[in-house]
């Protein structure tokens, strides 16, 4: 394993994986406590439409995924805010809409299935140097927004009405949070793949909160679980030639299983 670290693609996959491990739970934790866990999955499926459009129009697929996820995040939050339906119903509609749109665009182009496949299940070892920079930039943006506004996100997650009564602009911060979820989705698309993006945003925090401590403790533990899952998943996948995305998520699920058992005893 040590000698493998000298390969450029391994260094890139470790670097990209670490950024993902450190950023996915930051926004994911707020989605979990607001019962918005499906948001990541819906945005991920919409981002697949972006990837397909990017490949069809020969635009950077990551940029196209980011733009479609941002538009969908804005639209979902507007619909939830105007109470045009229950949140889970709106999320499901966007999930299917994204997937159906992607299927149509793929059939229109009649090709590029192989490239698309890497976005479905992730291709961390295929991350290009310029993509590492995009991933680092998006990760930096998520960390900055988290550091700037996490106390307000938390107050809104505890009790949205009380938070608004105390002068917090709920509409603005809710929108900012879902836009950051869209950024996380775009960041993770290349690494974990569209089908597994939500897992790293949701599972580490879900595992951490089973220990029954406060939010700060749970978030810190979620970051540790997330980073360990990424590193262990990458090592196992390299050693046994397995799909890295799947290995990473299975590692996170292992922690979830342990914490669920610990919570019961």
């Amino acid at each position, binding site marked *: 394993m040590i000698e493998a670290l000298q390969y450029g693609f391994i260094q890139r996959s470790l670097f990209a994986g670490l950024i993902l491990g450190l950023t996915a739970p930051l926004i994911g934790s707020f989605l979990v406590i607001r019962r918005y866990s499906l948001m990541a999955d819906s945005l991920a499926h919409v981002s697949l439409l972006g990837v397909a459009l990017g490949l069809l129009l020969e635009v950077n697929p990551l940029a196209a995924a980011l733009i479609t996820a941002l538009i969908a995040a804005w639209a979902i939050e507007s619909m939830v805010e105007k109470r045009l339906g229950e949140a889970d119903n709106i999320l499901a509609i966007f999930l299917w809409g994204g997937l159906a749109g992607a299927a149509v665009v793929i059939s229109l182009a009649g090709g590029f299935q192989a490239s698309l496949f890497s976005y479905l299940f992730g291709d961390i070892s295929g991350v290009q140097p310029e993509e590492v920079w995009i991933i680092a930039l998006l990760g930096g943006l998520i960390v900055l927004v988290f550091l700037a506004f996490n106390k*307000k996100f938390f107050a809104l997650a505890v*009790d949205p009405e009380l938070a608004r009564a105390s*002068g917090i602009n709920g509409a603005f911060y809710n929108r900012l949070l879902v836009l950051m979820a869209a950024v996380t989705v775009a960041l993770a698309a290349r690494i974990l793949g569209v089908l597994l993006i939500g897992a790293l945003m949701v599972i580490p925090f879900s595992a951490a909160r089973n220990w029954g401590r406060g939010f700060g403790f749970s978030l810190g533990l979620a970051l540790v679980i997330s980073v360990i899952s990424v590193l262990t998943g990458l090592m196992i996948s390299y050693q046994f030639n397995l799909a890295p995305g799947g290995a990473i998520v299975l590692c996170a699920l292992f922690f979830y299983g342990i914490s669920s058992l610990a919570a019961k005893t």
Partner: protein
Amino acid sequence: MPETLIQVESLSYQAKGQTILDEVNFEVHRGDYLGILGPNGGGKTTLFKLILGLLKPQSGQIRLYGQILEQFKDHHKIGYVPQQQNIQPRLPANVEEVVLSGMAARLGPFGGYSKTDKKSAQEAMELSRVEGLKHRLISELSGGERQRVYIARALTTKPEILFLDEPVTGVDQGQQERFYQFLAQLNQEMRLTILFVSHDLGVIAKEMKNLLCLNKRLICHGPPENFVKEDFLEELYGKHSKSVLHRH
């Protein structure tokens, strides 16, 4: 005359084609302890939400500290304890974190809670007798304990006005008595202005300085002893008003 803190002028609110509040006018002065009484659907919670800026009225105006509501920025002067706490059953937040979150609105970007903020939260927890619970998860607490945490959260910004919407729902009789003593202390010693929604005229008559009766319209406003008469109660609740009057 003490300073006017809240002015409500010709306030009307409709939702889904139904009138909830109709041309309501009243003022609240510093140091007042106002009980708000009315039947279910009479507009009590809606009135609070309008004053707190959570709902927008169709007509009329609200002024806080003389400023129209849209321009009011000193939200830390107001504490609010809602009727129902929207706590998620598995929320991983401890009592201290929930109480501190009462001050989140005042933080600038990248701001954290200062030593003074943490001291204020500590004082509010001691005052509300939840200091011993500060590391417990909010979702594990009983209804009464959770209520006290919400009061600590409301007190942490050292407010001048406290809005309480049926805060004793689900709290046992002994705790209710202690809670009323605590509120009386806040009102008398700390000059906190309190607005308290209750179903119980007996409690309002015993504990509070003024009564405001609301059944879509403002039916009465003044010292409770002026209104503990059946004709007012009949107007408020209809003919079965006697059951409302439990003298303590």
